[in-house]
């Protein structure tokens, strides 16, 4: 059976005057209806580029999709015409962006912006589209939705603005919702509210949710599966519970160990030494080897393939089994 959305060996380059940066180097993952996939990684790991490649909103140039396929309901959307891809945006796959203040147009009211897709894409008349916008705003729990229809983005608080973004993304009933760091710009209590809202909406609407984040804490409560990205590759994929319990990749393990914990009070925090690689000069072999605490000679030469280390579990480490068993 084919997945709702599946990425197969996706390669994306950024070609600039300074040279070619290999931003995605063979990303494969999938997500199904009613499921939440979290893509976790630090800045520059390629998680946002993955999201933009799926949406088809990469800036081309400089971005070039070198190879790979993105299958939506079994069809390769990279092979489609721009018009056919545009038809998919919003109606099949929608996206929520990181910073809602800059992602919303400052000169139009939120009612106008939420109802725009309804008017333009579905030919609804203004009144009906605004009515629907009120429903959507109520759905994402914006208080006094009707009264706020004529307000502008800058008149909303950060959390409410992100709710507006979500309402806008839901307007055309997408089957896949991509949320690119939806809570990064918000304070912690609001973060939790937005995550809960996304989880609830996914449940109610039966959508697939792709949650892009650098925050392990955000992921834990919401995601079903996690894909950890490093230097443009997915280095580990796992069920959330299993990943937290027994990571199978040294980077993931180091990330988990770097979280401050109450039960380890007094101990110095563990950090990951070094910096993520320059994507124009990715080190040979395993891209993580310069920072890896358990690196071996073969790691410097041989790119480790993704291997299954359990049911629904993949790790791209030469010593995956040892890491998993806690013997390395």
């Amino acid at each position: 059976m084919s997945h709702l959305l599946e990425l197969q060996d996706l390669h994306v380059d950024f070609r600039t005057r300074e040279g070619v940066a290999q931003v995605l180097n063979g990303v494969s993952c999938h997500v199904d209806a009613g499921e939440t996939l979290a893509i976790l990684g630090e800045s520059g790991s390629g998680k946002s580029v993955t999201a933009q490649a799926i949406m088809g909103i990469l800036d081309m140039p400089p971005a070039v999709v070198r190879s790979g396929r993105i299958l939506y309901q079994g069809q390769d959307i990279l092979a489609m015409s721009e018009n056919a891809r545009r038809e998919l945006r919003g109606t099949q796959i929608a996206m929520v962006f990181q910073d809602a203040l800059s992602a919303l147009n400052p000169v139009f009211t939120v009612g106008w912006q939420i109802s725009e897709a309804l008017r333009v894409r579905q030919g609804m008349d203004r009144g009906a589209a605004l009515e629907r916008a009120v429903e959507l705003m109520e759905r994402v729990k914006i208080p006094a939705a009707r009264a706020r229809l004529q307000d502008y983005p800058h008149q909303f608080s950060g959390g409410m603005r992100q709710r507006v973004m979500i309402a806008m993304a839901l307007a055309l009933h997408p089957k896949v919702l991509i949320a690119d760091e939806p809570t990064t710009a918000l304070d912690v209590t609001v973060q939790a509210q937005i995550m809960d809202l996304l989880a609830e909406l996914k449940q109610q609407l039966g959508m697939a949710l792709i949650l892009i984040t650098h925050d392990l804490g955000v992921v834990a409560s919401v995601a079903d599966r996690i894909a950890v990205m490093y230097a443009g590759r997915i280095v580990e994929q796992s069920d959330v519970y299993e990943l937290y319990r027994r990571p199978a990749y040294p980077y993931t393990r180091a990330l988990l160990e770097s979280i401050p914990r109450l039960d380890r009070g007094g101990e110095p925090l563990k950090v990951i030494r070094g910096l993520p690689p320059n994507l124009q000069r990715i080190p040979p072999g395993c891209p993580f080897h310069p920072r890896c605490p358990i690196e071996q000679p073969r790691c410097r030469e041989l790119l480790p393939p993704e291997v299954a280390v359990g049911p629904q579990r993949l790790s791209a480490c030469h010593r995956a089994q040892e890491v998993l068993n806690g013997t390395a």
Partner: protein
Amino acid sequence: MTAYLIRRLLQMMLTFVGATFIVYALMFSIASDPLQALAGDKPLNPSQRAQLTAQYHLDEPFIKQYGYYMKGLVTGKFGRAISGRQIADVMAEAWPRTLQLGLIALLIAIVLGISGGVYAGLRRGGAFDQTSLALTLVVIGTPIFVIGTVFQSVFAVELGWFRPSYAPELGIATYILPAIVLGLLSLATGMRLTRTSVAENLRSDYVRTASSKGLTRRRIVAVHVLRNSLIPVVTFLGTELGGLMSGAMVTEGIFNIPGIGGRLFQGIRLEDGPLVVTIVSLLILIYLVTSLLVDLLYAVLDPRIRHG
């Protein structure tokens, strides 16, 4: 909003009084003997001199003269110029010409500046963009009297597309070439501003949001990008009208248009205080009114200003 408007109107009145006072003081200080300037080389006999001096209050202190003048200005009695003509007549004759010239120049700057700038901004780095960047730089760097005389000799004298000087029988068409010359600087600046603004807005996050809604590029540009890009352009071009009118002095000179510029020049030469101050006062008034209109328009275009 009403409070803001009242505050702005009070500010305008203050600025207006202050500016006229300064101009009047300047004219008063440079005037050595306006009556002799009027008479030219002919000697002026004492009784004539006494009569004219009384008529223009020339023997009274400066502040009183200014008082008489402002009283006239406010009550609509502009009085007489030193040359003896009613200032109101001079104004009624010359202003429409300058106003038409300025408005046509502004129209040219708006239409060509914005459309050219949008096109260049959408295809940044393309042939049109590169050419227009170079050309606008030349325009910005060249003094208006050079552009004026070059255009006059090329397009009017050599090619014969226009008349080289003012021809009232042509009606509004006689202003086209002078208006192009006059508006060229605003056009070039406005075009560069539009180009940068469009290019910048194209890269902004809300454009990405708009395309993730599945909107066509055409709609994204025409609705989302344009509306945001035009905010600084409108502000700039709006305030240009006042500048264009005072800048019309040189253009009017080149094309022999008997507009306000020529009168102003004559007035300064003849040390004609009342005439010069009246013309400058009107220019100031146009400046003040257009900048108020632009500020109000700005608030309409950008909701962040309105609620800020």
